[in-house]
């Protein structure tokens, strides 16, 4: 110890050296940001942090030759929290991944999003997208969003299991309840739903029952605060939900949606209302056996609506290179880029471009496309049609309801109370 290799002076000098180096580094990157980034490099901020989608987007971006693109991938929770900061900063990312719907419209109303209306007209990249998608991407008469893929929701089940239990795919509510009864009589939980760490899945049934009973228009207005959660319409919805409670696997209260897929694949549960992303949680040998059906019709006079959460991109209004950002958006929305992304991401998502050749897609995906094409209205999902904050009021109300269906009136009154607070703020 007498000959200490690190003298105090040496240590201090080292600190000084590090400080100087970081200062120099700061200068270097500083000049890079102001001069270089504006003209040549585009930044694409991505929330796709799961391995497959991340690798897929990386590959797609590599294929873009016009301008160099820096892809920043950020975990979705952080991304969600930081999104306003990204958009509001002096030097924002040029293009960002996010959802269509009320959140995007909210940012558009604050003037954060680039008007991309020209991509939706003439020979623009989004010109051949469906009118429903265009409407979804519009805020105040301008298009501010570029949808690139979406997925459907349905009641998923195993074909072989339905055969074993001798049940047919139901199309009406009464048939559906009868199927639940039969499956329960075999000692199997009819419906699997992971409301433990992912309580939002409970909103799936709520959304659908509301769409089937009161229709898409009412549903959107309800989530926008124009109707009351303890009104007679929602009470009818909850009456139907209540009929399901006895058929829902009680263990689901401890599960996440991923956990709730396991009983379905092992035939310990019959059905699961979930998005097409379920295929990523099903072992490959069971995927071919997996099928889905449309949530049964309750009131035939209500136009059929389906949930189809749409993902895509928007650009920052403050981007220093708006022309470049639009070109990148056009590339990402192009048929080859969409197809490449969906296939590499191994997802069951559907392309928004009608130019994508879907004949090579799995039969399940083709059925999903057909399902959405046959529906009269498209909604997103509870949180995408309202806000994440309103979603937690739904989570609280619905998980409480699943525990104590008898307290439904009190729960709805509380829900309305907390929804009012959220919507009022």
């Amino acid at each position: 110890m007498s000959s200490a290799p690190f003298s105090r002076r040496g240590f201090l000098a080292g600190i000084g050296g590090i400080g100087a180096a970081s200062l120099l580094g700061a200068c270097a990157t500083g000049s890079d940001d102001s001069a270089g980034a504006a003209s040549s490099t585009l930044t694409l901020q991505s929330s796709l942090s799961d391995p497959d989608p991340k690798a897929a987007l990386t590959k797609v971006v590599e294929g873009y030759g016009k301008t160099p693109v820096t892809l920043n991938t950020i975990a979705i929770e952080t991304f969600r929290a930081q999104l306003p900061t990204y958009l509001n900063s002096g030097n924002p990312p040029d293009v960002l991944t996010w959802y269509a719907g009320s959140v995007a419209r909210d940012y558009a109303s604050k003037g954060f999003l680039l008007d991309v209306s020209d991509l939706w007209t003439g020979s623009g990249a989004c010109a051949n997208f469906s009118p429903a998608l265009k409407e979804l991407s519009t805020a105040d008469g301008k298009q501010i969003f570029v949808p690139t893929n979406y997925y459907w929701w349905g009641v998923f089940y195993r074909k072989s299991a339905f055969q074993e239990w001798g049940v047919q795919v139901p199309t009406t509510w009464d048939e559906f309840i009868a199927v639940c009864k039969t499956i329960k009589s075999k000692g199997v939980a009819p419906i699997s739903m992971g409301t433990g760490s992912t309580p939002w899945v409970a909103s799936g049934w709520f959304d659908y029952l509301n769409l089937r009973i009161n229709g898409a228009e009412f549903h959107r207005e309800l989530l926008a605060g124009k109707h009351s959660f303890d009104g007679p319409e929602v009470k009818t919805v909850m009456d139907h939900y209540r009929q399901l409670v006895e058929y829902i696997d009680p263990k689901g209260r401890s599960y996440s949606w991923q956990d709730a897929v396991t009983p379905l694949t092992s035939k310990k549960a019959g059905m699961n209302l979930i998005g097409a992303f379920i295929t990523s949680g099903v072992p490959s040998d069971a995927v071919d056996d997996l099928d889905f059906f449309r949530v049964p019709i309750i009131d035939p006079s209500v136009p059929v609506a389906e949930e189809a959460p749409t993902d895509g991109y928007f650009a920052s209004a403050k981007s220093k290179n708006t022309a470049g950002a639009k070109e990148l958006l056009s590339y990402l929305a192009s048929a080859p880029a969409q197809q490449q992304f969906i296939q590499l991401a191994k997802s069951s998502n559907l392309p928004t471009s009608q130019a994508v050749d879907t004949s090579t897609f799995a039969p399940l995906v083709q059925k999903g496309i057909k399902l959405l094409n046959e529906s009269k209205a498209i909604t997103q999902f509870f949180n995408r049609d309202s806000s994440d904050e309103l979603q937690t009021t739904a989570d609280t109300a619905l998980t409480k309801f699943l525990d104590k269906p008898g307290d439904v009136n009190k729960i709805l009154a509380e829900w309305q109370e907390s929804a009012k607070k959220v919507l009022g703020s």
Partner: protein
Amino acid sequence: MTSVAAPPRRRRTGLRAVPKVIWFFLLIPAAVEVGMVFWPAVNSFYLSLTEWNGLGAAQPVGLDNFKNLFSDEIFRGALWNNVIWAVGFGGLSVVGGLALAVALNRPRRGVGLYRSAIYLPMVFSLAVTGLFWRVQYQPDGTINTLLGAIGLESVERQWLADPDTALYAVLIAAVWRQVGYVMVLYLAGLKSTDPTLDDASAVDGAGAWQRFRFVTWPQLRGVNTVVFAVTVIDSLRTFDIVWAMTQGGPYHSSELLSTYMFQQGFTFLNLGYASAIAVVIFVLALIFIITYLVRATKEEIA
């Protein structure tokens, strides 16, 4: 002559004798401390009086956030849960840690193995502890299987999904981890006690409990201060384990102030409201720590 007189004189003019350049160097850490710790803290006090969603300028709203807090049922629930947490977490980990320390203090065959086994959970992060216990608490997990095996099927339940048990289930997991830490602190304290006092009182005919209560315990006063401060701070800042296990659910029944603050601040971006919760947490911690420190210093002087 001068060498004898010099020391007292230097002590009297101590402050002035410090070279100016030292003051200059002291300014640097002071500036860092002010800039990196106090300034953000003061900022969050200011934010608690505003409404801010991270965009544009914060709107001053006076004490509205605090008024809303106390009419917010979730906040009151979280406050009460924090009281349960502080008492349960503090009480159980101190009692458990002390008992283990006393039991494992005497050198004995294999005692090191026991000590390391009990300290082992401490090396896991709280998030890992949370994941580990979540598996145990699953409907078909170890705990329910064990209960079933010994014929207690009626006690089986969904520990984390039941609003009556969720908070306590998380509490057990947190104590499981903390107890080893408290044990190590007390073991260190016990090592510094004087064994001859213990022997002497044993010779005088004092029982095991009497020896612990009247001979060992008073010697642990210094360690107690540390354990108390660590436990109070740890219980007020508990966040990760609850977040990993229940995220405050089901329906806010295991919500703590910290998880509620996180949700308001970083999920909903109600930064003003979240800052108000942070201020409440800060004040609570301060009250506990100051009262205890004042008491402890008084005892030391007396």
